[in-house]
């Protein structure tokens, strides 16, 4: 007599949960299917062209750029970022380092390159193409951002502090959306990025092609856009602040095999 009643109760309680689960499964199916046929690959090809193209007053390519593993070494380099670079005496993420190489190796105008770092669907930026290309070279490599240098540790601590720092007209911090489990904006699950378990799959799929806007978006863009959504003042491209938050997130994702440029809604 007890068993059927318990079963009935279990079914009643499961129903609303089951529907939410179905939605989640269908969305996961959507995400799988768009990732399977993604234009992201084309950005990797274009990025290779940009990497090899002689540019700037010095008319050299970026091929001598040292991303941490030696001049021009791309395999596995993205997975080791952000890290401290002695020549710049700074912790740098990929885009910060590319900006550095564009200015020091190619002699290009840093301010101009920063201004045009985020492209449009009609005109993707070089930074986006380069990010896709270089990140693609770390497919399968475990994320291992720099952890030993004092500045690397300081960047992590600063990033962590910024993650929880509430400010702006809405008194938001990154943690307002990404500091708890079970949160959602419309149909998007909000991952709790302060925990490795949730940070890992996220960090392992940036930069990413955004199908809703047909744009390849990078981590610097993601920082910029999150701050915009929180109504903060705009962070400077490749600033210590953005590098610090990226460092914090990547350290949280340490050990996760990098999946290559992803595809998102």
């Amino acid at each position, binding site marked *: 007599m007890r068993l059927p009643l318990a079963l009935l109760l279990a079914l009643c309680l499961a129903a609303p949960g089951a529907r939410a689960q179905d939605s989640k499964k269908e969305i996961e199916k959507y995400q799988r299917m768009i990732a399977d*046929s*993604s234009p992201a690959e*084309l950005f990797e*090809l274009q990025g290779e062209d940009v990497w090899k193209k002689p540019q700037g007053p010095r008319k050299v390519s970026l091929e001598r750029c040292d991303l941490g593993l030696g001049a021009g070494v791309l395999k596995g380099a993205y997975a080791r970022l952000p890290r401290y670079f002695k020549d710049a005496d700074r912790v740098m993420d990929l885009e910060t380092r590319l900006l550095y190489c564009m200015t020091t190796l190619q002699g290009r105008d840093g301010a101009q390159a920063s201004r045009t770092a985020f492209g449009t669907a*009609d005109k993707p930026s070089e930074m986006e193409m380069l990010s896709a290309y270089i990140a693609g070279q770390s497919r399968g490599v475990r994320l291992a951002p720099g952890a030993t240098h004092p500045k690397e540790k300081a960047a992590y601590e600063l990033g962590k502090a910024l993650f929880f720092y509430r400010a702006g007209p809405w008194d938001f911090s990154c943690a307002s959306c990404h500091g708890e489990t079970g949160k959602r904006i419309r149909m998007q699950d909000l991952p709790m990025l302060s925990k490795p378990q949730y940070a890992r799959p996220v960090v392992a799929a940036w930069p990413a092609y955004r*199908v809703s806007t*047909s744009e390849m978006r990078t981590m610097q863009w993601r920082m910029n856009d999150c701050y915009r959504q929180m109504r903060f003042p705009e962070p400077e491209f490749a600033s210590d602040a953005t590098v610090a938050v990226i460092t914090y997130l990547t350290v949280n994702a340490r050990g996760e095999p990098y999946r290559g440029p992803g595809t998102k809604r």
Partner: protein
Amino acid sequence: MAEPMKIRTTLKGDSADVRVLMVHPMETGLRKDASGSIVPMHFIQEVAVKVNGKLAIEGQISQAVSRNPVFSFRLKGVKAGDKLEIAWLDNKGERSQIETAIA
């Protein structure tokens, strides 16, 4: 005026899975740009897939196909080394073509 394309082929017996990635805005003519003006219609209308010079698939598509189209097809009766050509023609008369060997 060729926009880049990329083909991936996977041979399975005498069938080949083909994935082709194209770069094209596929504008519907319904979208407004940042300044508020309508972006005119600009989309691929015809796609042709040929194996060893023979037409295997003919596609007529509309502006309802997503920007930067990605198609998957399946060819039959093919072998490694067969010549695969894919070409497109858009509503402005622009075209692009790519050739590769099935592998």
